[in-house]
C-alpha cells in the first residue's frame, strides 16, 4: 500500500536508528496505526482510559526518578528503580522534541514481571497513544501495565 511521505518517514524513524539501537517497534510487523488502534482497543475492553493508565505510569516514574537510583515501593508487591543515564534522545515523532534518557524499571516482586518506563515512552503514550511494538524492551503492554499498577484486578493465582 502506498503511504504518504510523512507516514513513511515516521516508520523509518521508528526503526533502529542512531538514537535507538533497537528501534521502537521491536519484532512487531504491524503498521504503527494498527499497533495504536489495537492497544487502544485493549484498554477500552478493560475499561481503563489512557489518561488513567498514563497518570499511574507517570506517578511511578516520578517517584523512582526522585529516589536517585534507590528502590522505591509503588504499591504492595511492585517496586521501581531508576537507572540514570545522561544525554537526550529525540522523539521519532517529528516536532515532539528531545527527552532525557534513563530508564525506570518496575518489577513485580512475586512474578518478576517487568515494565521499563522512559520519559520519551511516556510522552509517546500521551501524545500518540503509542505503547511501542511487541518485542521492544520498552513496550508497555497496556493490559499488563494496568494489572501491575492495580488498575484492574489480577487474575487469581493458578
Amino acid at each position, binding site marked *: *500500500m*502506498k503511504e*504518504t*511521505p510523512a507516514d513513511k518517514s515516521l516508520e523509518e524513524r521508528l526503526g533502529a536508528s542512531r538514537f535507538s539501537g533497537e528501534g521502537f517497534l521491536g519484532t512487531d510487523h504491524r503498521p504503527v496505526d494498527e499497533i495504536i*488502534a*489495537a492497544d487502544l482497543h485493549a484498554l477500552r475492553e478493560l475499561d481503563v482510559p489512557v489518561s488513567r493508565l498514563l497518570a499511574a505510569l507517570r506517578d511511578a516514574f516520578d517517584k523512582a526518578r526522585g529516589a536517585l537510583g534507590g528502590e522505591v515501593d509503588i504499591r504492595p508487591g511492585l517496586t521501581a528503580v531508576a537507572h540514570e543515564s545522561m544525554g537526550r534522545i529525540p522523539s521519532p515523532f517529528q516536532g515532539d522534541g528531545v527527552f532525557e534518557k534513563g530508564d525506570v524499571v518496575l518489577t513485580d516482586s512475586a512474578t518478576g514481571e517487568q515494565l521499563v518506563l522512559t520519559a520519551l515512552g511516556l510522552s509517546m503514550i500521551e501524545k500518540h497513544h503509542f505503547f511501542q511494538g511487541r518485542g521492544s524492551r520498552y513496550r508497555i503492554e497496556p493490559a499488563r501495565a494496568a494489572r501491575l499498577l492495580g488498575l484492574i484486578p489480577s487474575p487469581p493465582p493458578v
Partner: protein
Amino acid sequence: MTPLADMSLLASFALIFVSAAFTDNILLARFLGMCSCLGVSKKVDTSLGLGAAVIFVTACTSALNYLVYQYLLLPLGLDYLRLITFIVVIAAFTQLVEMIIERVSEKLYNSLGIFLPLITVNCAILGISLFMLNKPYSFLQAFAFGLGGGFGWFLAITLIGAIRERINEAALPRGLEGPGITLIIIGIMALGFIGFSGMIKI
C-alpha cells in the same frame, strides 16, 4: 456522427468534465487508483494534497498523451504500444514537474510536490489517458476529460478522507480497522455514485 460534434466547444467541454468527474468517476466507478487512495486517505489534508497533485498530473498527461498518440503513435502505426509509451511519458512528466516545483517554490513543494513521487506510477492516471482514446475527442476535449477525471478522483479521496477521520474515532471491530473499513466505505460510496450513471451518455 457523434453527438459531441454539434455542441458548442464550451458546452462539450463542460459535459465531458462532469461526466468524467461523476458518472465515470475513476475511483468509484472504475476502481482505479485504489492503492494510493487506501494509503493516503487517512486525513483530509493529505487527501487534499494528493488529490490536487492528481488533478494537475491527469490534466497535463492526458493532453500530452493525446499529442503523443495522434502525432507519433498513429502515423507510425504503433498504436498497440500506447500503454507502455503512456507509462513512460507519465513517469517522466511527474519527475520533471517535481524538480521544477522544488526549484520554484518551497511552499508549493511542501504541499503538493511531496506527493508527486507517489503518483509516478498510478493506474488512475494511466487509465484516464487510455480511456480517453475510446472516444473521438479533440485535443481540448481530451484535456477536459483529464481534468474531469482528476477532479473526480480528488473529490472521492477527499470525501473518503473526511469519513475516515470521523470513523477512526469510533469503536470498530478489530479486523475492520484501517483498510478494511475503507474498502467498505468506498463500496457504499460507489453505490451512491451509481445514481449518476446514465445521466450523461457521451
